[in-house]
């Protein structure tokens, strides 16, 4: 357990973009918000636009943590072989399983949680500034908070990050880590080629595109059936319903978890057998 915790710290020392990128994007988004406030203060309390900046910040940070997670996963077990530092790590009494688990938990656990914390902190500061401005103009702060429904919004964000970014996408990150443990070069290409090849073969052989659709559904998060969202991507806390039962009951969810375990087990095995020269 101690080895796992320290191996996690080690990953954060090595890949500082894990936390620097979300913080930097959050700062940029905050600056954007300040400009927005100065530019169109009337929109702050208007019922149609009240949630817009908050959704934008959440979306930007999700995009950031997803990109960081993908870049990290593709390099996680590839970089240590490329610079041969794996020979140093293997000279320590830390098992391959612990090392791979620590690395896998970065995209699957740490980044979604980090994304949540950063998002909520920025949104709180934004809401605080909005409240101050509204109060100064003599408008109702209470009505603003009620419309924003901050607590509900945060809970929903948390659920979305865990269900979709963490659990639904886990097999995708598991696959990337497997490729990073296996590829001699260009892990990105090797990560993309097999899915593309499967889709092409399926198209030629059966003239269907089920694999591509399946992948698309998983990546867009809709296959997770984690929520029922009337009218698209944006999660309005008033109308979005959490359907955790349906999410956990879907076979796709469990198949995804099994695939993740298989990919990671294969990555552990590869790390065990491969010795760089």
């Amino acid at each position: 357990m101690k080895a796992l915790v320290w191996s996690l710290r080690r990953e954060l020392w090595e890949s500082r973009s894990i936390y620097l990128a979300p913080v930097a994007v959050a700062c940029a988004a905050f600056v954007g918000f300040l400009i927005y406030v100065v530019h169109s203060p009337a929109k702050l309390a208007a019922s149609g636009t009240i949630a817009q900046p908050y959704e934008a910040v959440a979306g930007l940070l999700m995009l950031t943590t997803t990109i960081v997670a993908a870049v990290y996963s593709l390099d996680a077990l590839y970089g240590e072989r490329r610079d041969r530092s794996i020979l140093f790590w293997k000279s320590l009494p830390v098992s391959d399983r612990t090392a791979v688990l620590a690395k896998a938990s970065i995209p699957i656990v740490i980044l979604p949680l980090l994304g949540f914390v950063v998002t909520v902190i920025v949104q709180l500061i934004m809401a605080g500034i909005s409240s101050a401005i509204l109060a100064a103009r003599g408008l109702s702060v209470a009505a603003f908070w009620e419309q924003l429904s901050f607590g509900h919004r945060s809970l929903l964000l948390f659920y979305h990050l865990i269900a979709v970014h963490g659990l639904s996408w886990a097999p995708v990150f598991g696959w990337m880590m497997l490729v990073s443990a296996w590829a001699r070069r260009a892990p990105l290409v090797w990560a993309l080629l097999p899915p593309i090849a499967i889709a092409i073969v399926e198209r030629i052989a059966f003239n269907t595109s089920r694999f591509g659709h399946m992948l698309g559904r998983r990546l867009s998060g809709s296959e997770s059936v984690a929520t029922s969202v009337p009218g698209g991507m944006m999660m309005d806390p008033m109308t979005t319903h959490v359907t955790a039962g349906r999410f956990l009951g879907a076979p796709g969810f469990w198949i995804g978890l099994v695939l993740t375990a298989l990919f990671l087990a294969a990555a552990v095995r590869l790390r065990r057998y491969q010795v760089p020269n």
Partner: protein
Amino acid sequence: MPCIESRGLRKTFGATAALDGIDLRIEEGRIVGLIGPNGAGKTTALNAILGLIPYEGQLAVLGRDPWAQRDDLMRDVAFIADVAVLPRWIRVSQVLDYVGAVHPRFDRSKAEGFLAKTTIRRNSKVRELSKGMVTQLHLAIVMAVDARLLVLDEPTLGLDLLYRKQFYDTLINDYFDGNRTVLVTTHQVEELEHVLTDVLFIDRGRIVFESTMEDVESRYLEVLVHPERVDAARALNPLYARQTIGRSILLFEGADREQLAALGDVRTPSIADLFVAVVGGAR
């Protein structure tokens, strides 16, 4: 219990046998040099001993199966595969923190003590250190681990003369205590041979020669033969003969020292010369 014991140790890569049936017994408390030409199987043998690759045959390191019990074995074994493997992004303080946290036998104060003798700063990153400093850092870490077996594979490769000498001096003076076992491979035998207690020659995946250094000194003699005595010397059936500038140098096994002294200048052969005689002569 021997430190390392193997019987019929084999490792094949496709059709080629990198290790072709190695029988080996290394007792604890020895400093063993594993010498061999490129591609002889040195690194493969060390990788098997360190549990980095699967193998066929029997192999026990400190009483354990290195492949099956690797994580456990790494508590008692330290190794430097190459000094260039310390991750370049890590800070000196971070690597000490990490090793200290995951290694139950790591004595941080000891490592700090070694580092205090160098100019390495705690907040430097490895990439900012010179090659010699990286070596010093890696050595400081390894020597602060209370290991029973230390394995070094070409530890001084790419280092300049000064650091190579310093490496072995530090190793012997500050680390070796008579109980630990050190197994080392190197191309530069001459800077190592005065610290070894045992020597193993490996060629084409087999151990072709093994001896203690004492036996080497008592069994093998090298003679710079006077030109007029060459025929007489050759009649004594030397193991190996070579020419230097105008002189013949003959290497004898188990010959009488008095008898040889009549033929020319007698001395103990270097490991490098013995290696050429044993491995080169067999080819």
